């Protein structure tokens, strides 16, 4: 117990850790600490992989996923593919606190967030738009589509499914450049 209380997070983003720690000490709430720490990363756009203005999808849009879990009662609040709301972990906390559900997704999660008082605003930035433009110029590479036509390894969409395909015997993920700035 000499090690408690404690805050730990993935990746070298100590500003998030410090924000969570300060909240834990001041509020004694582990949920508040996690929400505050993750919110700090959303504000700081940690590594480009958290918050607005990062990881544009095939259409150039940034969407956010978040989850918060209470280890005392196994209650969970989560949101997936949320559009237009910067504070995804805050919305997840509202799912935990203000619903009997676990996971809300997409446009309807955004509607829930707005109902809960969150501001709707664009998640795109000049940086994310440039990432999208660069991806289009490089023939939409890397690309997560498979068994579609035209060939997703060389061409942009729109895509249609191939009528048949050979099932790979072993799972092999293409080199998709998953690293500190591109990951879940």
């Amino acid at each position, binding site marked *: 117990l*000499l*090690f*408690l*209380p*404690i*805050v*730990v*997070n*993935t*990746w*070298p*983003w*100590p500003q998030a*850790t*410090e924000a*969570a*720690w300060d909240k*834990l000490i001041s509020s004694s*709430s*582990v949920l508040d600490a*996690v*929400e505050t*720490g*993750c*919110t700090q990363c959303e504000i700081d756009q*940690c590594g480009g*992989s*958290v918050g*607005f203005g990062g*990881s544009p*999808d*095939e*259409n150039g*849009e940034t*969407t*956010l*996923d978040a*989850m*918060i*879990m209470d*280890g*005392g009662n*196994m209650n969970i609040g989560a*949101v*997936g593919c949320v559009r237009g709301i910067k504070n*995804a*972990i805050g919305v*997840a906390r509202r799912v935990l606190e203000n619903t009997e559900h*676990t*996971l809300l997704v997409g446009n309807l999660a955004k509607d829930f967030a707005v109902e809960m008082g969150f501001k709707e605003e664009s998640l795109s930035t000049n940086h994310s738009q440039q990432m*999208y433009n660069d991806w289009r110029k490089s023939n939409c590479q*890397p690309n*997560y589509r498979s068994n579609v036509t035209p060939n997703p390894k060389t061409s942009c969409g729109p895509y249609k499914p191939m009528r048949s395909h050979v099932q790979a015997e072993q*799972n092999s*993920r293409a080199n998709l450049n*998953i*690293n500190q700035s*591109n*990951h*879940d």
Partner: protein
Amino acid sequence: TVGMISIDENGHVAAGTSTNGLNHKVPGRVGDSPIPGAGCYADNTVGGAVATGDGDVMMRFLPSFQVIESMRHGVSPTQAIEDALNRILKYYPTFNGALVAVSKDGYVGAACTGFSSFHYCVRSHSHQPTAVFSVKC
């Protein structure tokens, strides 16, 4: 993704994640971060675990849940993480990912695969200001 675990002096555990996912994903795609047991898991009687990396793969194995269950049976945080990663690597040898776990007593473990190294942050009364640790994958 940022994955975060917080434990207070009474052993109350919370965990969370937040991410914008992978670059150039198919619209509508959701990764492991909002999936219970994948992106994170917490249990006051055991501790907490968080994951980061290739979410499409991780969400098929629920590694955070597996780590908590291994720790429940007395396995150390680091060993529990290595077991969870090895289970994924059996099916996806080129998988990229990392996990961090904290026991209910505050013991921290981490392991990774596919990256050259992985960094994580720890803040406690013994680590002030925040310490950034690195593990080789």
